[in-house]
Structure formats: C-alpha cells, structure tokens
C-alpha cells in the first residue's frame, strides 16, 4: 500500500517532470509561431484559419502551466489544463493517424531541421503518459511543497 507521504513524493516528481517537459515543448513553438501555426494547420481539424490563434496562445499556455506545475502554483487548475491539453493532443494525433495523413507532429520541435518527428503511435503513448502524470498531480494526497494556494 502506498502511504500518503509516498503519494506526495510521486505527485511532486510527476509535476516537476511534466512541468519541465511542457516548458521545453513550448520554447521552440514560441520562437517559431508561423511554423507552429502551419504544423497545426496540417492536422486539418480547425476551420476559419483558427490555427494561427491556437498557434499563438497554446505555446504560452503550455509554458505557463509548466511553470505553475514546477513551482506549485494553482496546481489543481494547471493539472486539469495539462490533462485537457493531453486529451486534445491524443485526439488530434489519433485522427491524423486514422486518416493516414503524413504530417509533422509539431509536438516538441516545429522547424524544418526537425521535421523528422512525424505523427505516430509513439507520440500518442507519450501523451497518455503525460495525461497519467497530470492525474497523479490531481490525486495527490496532501498539499505539500506548494507555493499558492497554501491550504
């Protein structure tokens, strides 16, 4: 049986790792918004050119949620947003795979030099793993090592 304090340590690990991954994933997208918007556009799921808006907002959201997770700020909210993002990513990746469209993932790197990262089952498994980590943060036992809110 896992004790409460063990659960807290696992949740802490999950949130720091997930946070760092989100921050890392956001950087290349923030640096190259046009390329990231095109990568979203290639999925062919958004109407009216909305890929640009998502391409602008999503990386900053990833960065912010990543920072919140690492520092322990508004953990419930940020873990839920992280879980929501992972579910959206899993759906987007799966539909691309099912429709057989061969596109660049746009997951971590979006520039031409890194176009080798194609959509594939590995990316989906990764996102399930990240989803699990967000749920671990949500189900953490005690509220320790958190900056805000304290209680």
């Amino acid at each position, binding site marked *: 049986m896992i004790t409460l304090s063990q659960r807290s340590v696992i949740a802490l690990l999950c949130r720091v790792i997930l946070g760092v991954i989100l921050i890392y994933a956001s950087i290349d997208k923030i640096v190259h918004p046009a390329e990231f918007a095109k990568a979203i*556009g290639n999925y062919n799921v958004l109407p009216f050119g909305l890929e640009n808006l998502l391409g*602008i907002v999503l990386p900053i959201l990833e960065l912010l949620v990543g920072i919140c997770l690492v520092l322990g700020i508004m953990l419930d909210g940020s873990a839920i947003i992280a879980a929501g993002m992972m579910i959206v990513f899993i759906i987007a990746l799966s539909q691309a795979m099912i429709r057989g469209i061969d596109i660049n993932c746009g997951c971590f790197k979006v520039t031409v030099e890194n176009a080798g990262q194609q959509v594939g089952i590995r990316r989906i498994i990764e996102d399930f793993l990240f989803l699990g980590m967000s749920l671990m943060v949500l189900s953490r036992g005690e509220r320790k090592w958190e900056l805000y809110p304290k209680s």
Partner: protein
Amino acid sequence: MITQLPIGQIIVIAITSTVLSLTLNAVRSDGIPLLAEELAVAEEIEHDAAEPRLLAITLDQALEFYQKGTVFVDAREPEYYQEGHIKGAWNIPFFLELVFKLDSLQGKDAPMVIYCSGDECGSSEDLAYELQAEGFSNLLVFKGGWTAWNTSGHPTEP
C-alpha cells in the same frame, strides 16, 4: 483527489496566457495574423517574371503547366513517391539538394508546381514557403495533388 473543478484557477491561467500571448504576438516583429489566410488561387497561368508569386492552382491549371513542361516537385515522403507520382515529378527529400538542383537547372524565376497527396496535406505549401525564403519567385501549389491527378487519369509513373 480534488472534489470540485477549480474553475477559478482554470480561468485565471487561461486568461493570463491569452492576454500574454496576444500581447507578445502584437509587439514582436515576427508576429503572425490572428487568422490564417488561404493561399490565393492563380487567375491565369501566364505571368510577368518580374513579379514574385506564390499561388494555388487547380487541376486544369496544373495540367496546362504540365503540358508546357513545367517542373513538378513532389513534396511527399519518398515511400509515397515510389508508390506512384505525377510522371516526371521530382522528389528530393534533402531541401538544400532540391534548392541547388532547381537553381542550377532552371534558375529562381522559372515556374514550378509543388504538390503533395491532396487537399488535406500541407507539405506542398510548407515547401513552397521554404523555397520562397530561398528566393524562388514563381511557386505554384497544386492543391488537388496526387489524388486529384491520379483519379483524373493524367500521366503517372511508375
């Protein structure tokens, strides 16, 4: 486990990132328009060479270019190309090699038609923008791509 949805926190994070990202996009020099614009369709295939263009073309226009001997570039992965492609189309996965070959064989102002699998792929458009950045000035993206070409019975190989 949390018992109720932390709606307040979600809203705070969502609004903060929206405001931050839109502000950043507005102030940075390489910001992008809030909504993506579709590539305009070419009105005619004849063209004044002094004016750079990057346009979409229809199947009929693609056929006209084909009959005039314009270079076709297949932007798909090599395995799709090997399964079947527009007759005579190039498929060069290494970007710099493609740039070199296009430049040395026909120069940067000559027309070229770029395609991928069909309406739903974006690699032809991506490649067109990359070539534009390299100084190529007569770029035509055949949106219907391989699917439209193949189903209408135009020349293919192998």
